[in-house]
């Protein structure tokens, strides 16, 4: 009996394993091809950055220059305008992200955990603001910033962006699900709202805040619309994106230098991104977009 039953099974299993392996080969091939395509633009940037000027105007595609010229990077690093733009971008990204997180965490916590009659209406106001698409507010914000004299300054770049209704919404959601026992334990230890927030809530919020920090930093570093509206003249608050963009309308420009600059502009944000990517993926998953 058993021999009859077991005899066909090894063949069936082998076939299923073969199908699975074949499927895996197909899967890996597909995803590798897509990955190569996704990495192609980076390769183009590096290749162009080290190509001598003659190659760039050539009629045919050059796979890799015969004499790679790495001096474009040092050229760019010696350009004071580029350096200033990187500094401006860094200042803007760090202050903007940090400020956003702090302000939104405080407001979100208050709306979620501190009983007050104003909490509900305030939250409703936040939702209403969320409905307003961020990009169309550039004009009204420009009116305010220009009348305050903040055009072309870091203040004008950063301050309007510090108040993110989106972050407040997310933090409030997060704090609504925050375990009350911890806070109550702290309350029993004699802490007030400030103490509880500082000593209990904050240390336990770091992972979530990291996710928002990554998103915020990347968004701030790559921001284009607002910086180009507000800043960019003279010795003002040119960010690295505005600087790069100006070459697309320039009369002539140094190709390899431009791509070297573009690559260098990616370094800070890729670093932050790769280091904190883990938190971002978890954070995105946990905002409940998955549905549960």
């Amino acid at each position: 009996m058993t021999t009859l039953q077991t005899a066909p099974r090894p063949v069936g299993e082998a076939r299923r394993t073969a199908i699975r392996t074949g499927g895996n080969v197909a899967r890996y091939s597909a995803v590798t091809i897509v990955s190569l395509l996704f990495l192609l633009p980076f390769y183009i940037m590096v290749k162009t950055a080290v190509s001598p000027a003659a190659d760039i105007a050539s009629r045919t595609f050059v796979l890799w220059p015969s004499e790679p010229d790495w001096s474009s990077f040092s050229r760019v690093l010696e350009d004071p305008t580029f350096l200033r733009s990187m500094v401006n971008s860094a200042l803007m990204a760090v202050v903007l992200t940090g400020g956003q997180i702090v302000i939104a965490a405080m407001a979100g916590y208050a709306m979620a955990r501190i009983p007050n009659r104003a909490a509900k209406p305030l939250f409703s106001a936040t939702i209403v603001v969320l409905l307003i698409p961020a990009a169309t507010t550039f004009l009204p914000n420009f009116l305010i910033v220009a009348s305050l004299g903040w055009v072309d300054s870091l203040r004008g770049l950063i301050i309007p962006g510090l108040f993110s209704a989106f972050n407040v919404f997310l933090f409030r959601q997060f704090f609504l699900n925050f375990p009350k026992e911890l806070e109550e334990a702290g309350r029993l230890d004699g802490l007030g709202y400030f103490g509880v927030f500082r000593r209990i809530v904050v240390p336990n919020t770091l992972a979530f805040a990291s996710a928002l920090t990554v998103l915020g930093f990347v968004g701030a570093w790559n921001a284009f619309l607002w910086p180009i509206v507000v800043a960019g003249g003279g010795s003002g608050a040119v960010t690295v994106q505005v600087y790069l963009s100006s070459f697309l309308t320039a009369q002539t420009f140094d190709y390899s230098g431009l791509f070297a600059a573009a690559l260098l502009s990616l370094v800070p944000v890729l670093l932050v991104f790769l280091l904190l990517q883990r938190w971002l993926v978890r954070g995105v998953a946990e905002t409940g977009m998955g549905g549960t």
Partner: protein
Amino acid sequence: MTFSRSHRLSPNLSARLSRRTLLAGAGAGAAALTLASCGSNDGGTGAGGSGGLSQWYHQYGEDGVQQAVEDWAANYEAAEVTVAWTLGDYASKLSSRLLSGSGVDVFENNQIDPASARSGLYADLTDVMDPIKDQFSEVALKPVTIDGKIWGIPMITDPQLLWYRPSLLEAAGIAVPTTFEELMQAGIELTGGDQKGLFVGNDGGAGVFSQAIPVVAGAGLLNDDATQVTFNTPEVVAGFAALQAAYKAGAMLVGSPTDWTDPTSFNAGLAAITWQGMWALPAMVEQFGDDVAAMAIPPVGGSTTSAVMVSQWNEQVAAKASDLDAAKAMAKAQWVDDADFQKEFAVGFGFHIPPRTATAADTTELQDGVAKQVVDLTTEWGFTAGPFWAPAMGTALTDAIIRIVSENADPATELAAAQATAQQTLDSLAS
């Protein structure tokens, strides 16, 4: 998610925490201070306040210009001048700054607009210009005159016209075109191999010919007192149809990494005839020596008008400048009094024509060869649209031509629509 249970307090911990709080507070305060000081360094007063003047330039393509203007500013003794060398979209950045009222005192501008003049953003320079008004040609004064007052001092005149390589035309057996239709035909015939006949912009000529074709068709853009839009005539329609035909026949170089303002494509032999500004003359001559010549845009159909399109940079003073008198004095010193600097600025880097006829006649580099040819053509056929040709009208017309050229739209309908939009804009300006 695990939560740490580190909330049990001990006296040591609490003491440490209160110290940390202090530091955090200090850090936040420091950040706020940095923010505030960063802001005021860059924004606020521009050149640092007391007695300083801020002078704005756009990013000139030629090397050496920035150095030259910074040197002049350093050598100017009556005030401390800081040069703001602006990248990218100069016009909108300038206007944002002028609106916010500080940080720009003296500036160049190639789009002086009536709305800004009337709302008091520009300082009235009539008193500075009146004594020397007759030293400028009519074309040079047109961009700076609004409502009978003068708002800027012309700095450099930039003629834009067509440039070609005589050897290529000879080799193909083509005579120098005398009409616009012949020009388009020449472009078609000169296309072959790696070379296209015409390079008039990546947009197929929409930008550069949007003003030129109405002018050489005899229609013009606006009537004399700037109340009517005049560019919708059958001759203009015919001109755009000819442009469309050349584009469809593949005679135009499009998709070049840099646009027509950069002579690199022409110098690399990618086009036989190109639209170009005089600023690129040195680069072209260096590449081709004698084998480069200039021609005005030839007339369309039965018209007898040719054109050389003129754009002009003018020095202005902001009405809200911190020290209005000092600013006006500086502008006058640089662009009225200092003839040597004006000559050097005009021909030392790229090539431009000094707007004052005497200075131009005095500039040796403009006295022979292609340069002289261009100066003469500009004197005879120079055209500028003037301040009442608002950018909105230019956009409406350019959009129409882009649709005609790259989407094969019907020239007549597109032009009619553009005229309606332009007239509407003109009417709202008049009030």
